């Protein structure tokens, strides 16, 4: 054997697998593409071994073993679909279903419920209890925060208890009472108020812990999903945007072991309503005879190009740290030599860390692209930039609500080009208003605080004539005679990667779903 000593080879369901020593059989099976049913096991939590759902047959052992807790060993032969194992799991499911209510039609988890899935796969089709058997009943409990507890549906896998105790380090949940009367209890006088407690809803394999916010809103199978990046803070947690009829109805964490692992905070989770705002600008507007009038894109871009060409002094770009790298970069290109850029970010005191995961917290900068804006030459001296407005020839605003800029300061500027999703009062002084899409309606990238460039994909369609900011600025460059039209966000990113030193060696396609860290190419060069 030439293999290293810390690697063992075993057979799972007839498939030969190599796994490092210390790995559990369940994880090794996952590698081999063999799914072993499980409830209490979760890759982000310590092993509890209470659900007995992952019982497998291991040759030369007297009893069935739980795959989530036995370590792999050389020459082990594991058979998850051995008759004995299947029969045992069918028994486990039968016990779980004795008191489980038949309320799948009104349960939010239906369609993504692991109890449903496993019962369909290997459970018993009918109960052996009398039809008159009265199921155990406990009323729904409010656990505080965004969470409701439905004890009847609970299968006591204790993932929520594990999470609160070992990951959130706020052990307020417990298993109360014994035997068939057991339920998940909350310590008297306590509430699920931890900033990351919403994760117990995702962790719950059944519909026992449910989100009040999402309650009865949609069925799991109706939702369309798109990978995104949370815009709540500079941590850049990976999320899935779930939409129903072009409306974002829920955000859930997307696994990225380098950033957020399996979790996201409640602030980010519930901060999605602004994506569905109805008061959007739907057509480009230009000032005609003192009023803003709707025109087509061609006219609006022509007018914007005239402003950029006709002005002599510095061009101030006021950006939001919610704008994509592509938009921020192309705005610097439009301003060219005369670029003065500043971004604004809301800062709050203190962070809300998740103790169980290193370097994961709800950060104090409440915008996703602070690092990106900094790398692209924008400064955070927003107020200084606003005072610089006094001698600016033109101002380009990228998705910034301008609520801290005084009307008087803006009125002094000869011309204002406003790119935004909505039209706030201060922006009404603009000569040209260009409607852009929000983060759920376009493709693009953000750079999180650790320098990880991450892609987000379009989840819904934008309103009316609104276009992604990178497209608008790309067309403006064409109008100025300084570029070729951009067809995709990827092309805009390649242009950015080719021009900005910090983005060296990063390609849009190479980002994938997990992103890439800035400066890794430079580091590789240095070591080579």
């Amino acid at each position, binding site marked *: 054997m030439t293999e290293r000593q810390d690697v063992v080879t075993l057979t799972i369901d007839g498939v030969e697998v190599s796994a490092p020593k210390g790995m559990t059989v369940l994880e090794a099976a996952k590698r081999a593409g063999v799914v072993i049913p499980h409830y209490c096991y979760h890759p982000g939590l310590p092993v509890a071994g209470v659900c007995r759902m992952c019982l497998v047959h291991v040759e030369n052992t007297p009893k069935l073993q739980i795959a989530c807790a036995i370590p792999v060993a050389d020459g082990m032969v594991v058979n998850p679909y051995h008759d004995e194992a299947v029969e045992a799991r069918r028994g486990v499911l039968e016990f779980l279903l004795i008191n489980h209510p038949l309320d*799948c*039609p*009104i349960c939010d988890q239906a369609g993504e419920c692991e109890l449903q899935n496993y019962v369909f796969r290997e459970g018993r089709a009918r109960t052996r209890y009398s039809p008159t058997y009265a199921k155990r009943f406990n009323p*729904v409990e409010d656990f505080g925060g965004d969470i409701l507890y439905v004890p009847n549906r609970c299968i006591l896998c204790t993932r929520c208890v594990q999470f609160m105790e070992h990951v959130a380090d706020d052990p307020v949940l417990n298993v109360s009472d014994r035997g068939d009367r057991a339920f998940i209890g909350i310590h008297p006088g306590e509430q699920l108020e931890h900033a990351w407690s919403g994760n117990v809803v995702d962790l719950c394999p059944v519909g026992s812990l449910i989100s009040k916010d999402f309650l*009865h*809103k949609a*069925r799991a199978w*109706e939702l369309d999903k798109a990978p995104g990046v949370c815009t709540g803070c500079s941590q850049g947690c990976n999320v899935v945007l779930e939409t129903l009829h072009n409306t974002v109805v829920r955000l859930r964490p997307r696994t990225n072991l380098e950033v957020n692992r399996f979790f996201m905070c409640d602030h980010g989770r519930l901060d999605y309503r602004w994506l569905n705002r109805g008061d959007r600008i739907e057509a480009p507007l230009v000032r005609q005879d003192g009023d803003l009038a709707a025109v087509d894109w061609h006219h609006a871009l022509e007018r914007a190009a005239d402003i950029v060409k006709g002005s002599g002094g510095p061009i101030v770009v006021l950006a939001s740290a919610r704008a994509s790298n592509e938009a921020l970069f192309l705005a610097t290109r439009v301003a060219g030599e005369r670029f003065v850029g500043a971004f604004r970010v809301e800062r709050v005191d203190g962070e809300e860390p998740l103790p169980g995961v290193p370097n994961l917290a709800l950060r104090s900068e409440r915008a996703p692209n602070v690092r990106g804006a900094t790398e692209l030459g924008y400064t955070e001296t927003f107020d200084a930039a606003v005072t610089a407005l006094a001698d600016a020839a033109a101002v380009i605003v990228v998705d910034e609500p301008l609520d801290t800029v005084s009307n008087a300061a803006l009125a002094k500027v000869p011309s204002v080009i406003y790119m935004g999703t909505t039209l706030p009062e201060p922006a009404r002084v603009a000569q040209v208003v260009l409607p852009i899409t929000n983060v759920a309606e376009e493709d693009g990238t953000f750079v999180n605080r650790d320098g990880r460039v991450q892609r987000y994909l379009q989840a819904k369609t934008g309103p009316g004539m609104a276009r992604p900011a990178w497209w608008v600025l790309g067309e403006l460059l064409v109008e100025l005679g300084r570029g070729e039209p951009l067809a995709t966000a990827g092309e805009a990113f390649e242009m950015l990667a080719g021009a900005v030193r910090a983005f060296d060696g990063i390609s849009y396609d190479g980002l994938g779903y997990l992103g890439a860290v800035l400066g890794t190419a430079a580091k590789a060069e240095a070591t080579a």
Partner: protein
Amino acid sequence: MAITVKVMKRPEHEVSYLRATLKGLALTFSHLLRPSVTMQYPEQTATDDWTLSPRWRGTHRMLTDEQGRSKCVACGLCPQICPANCIKLVPGEDEQGNRYPLIYEIDEFRCVFCGYCQEVCPEEAIHVGVHYENAEYERGRFVYDLERLCAQTHPVSTLWDPSDPKGQ
């Protein structure tokens, strides 16, 4: 060249119409003596040996509980299964926290009367009806809302039972 017409001489009994006419009249009058098979619709809607099949799938009816509320819990299975996409459902929550349909509408024009909605319903709420008289004065009236579906009183369809394929 002059046209010549050839005149055929046929026997008298072959060219006479009288015989055929009498034969026809005899057949016509013989029907007067046979039993009538016409059902006098709309005065009459069923006869002794003919009635609508209990498996007939006509316009829908929503069943209600003892309090007169619809049995629907807005689970969303019928709009999901509907091949004609004719069911509109918006779920809501009532004062007791129960899930119920805020909006439940069936467009009977779009419906193909497949009966899948009845088959899939876990609450036995929505049914296709043994009913066919649906004329309206306006097209819009063919979109049945929840109130109208609950107000229907016609019998509901008995769907085909796979375990008893020949039974009614």
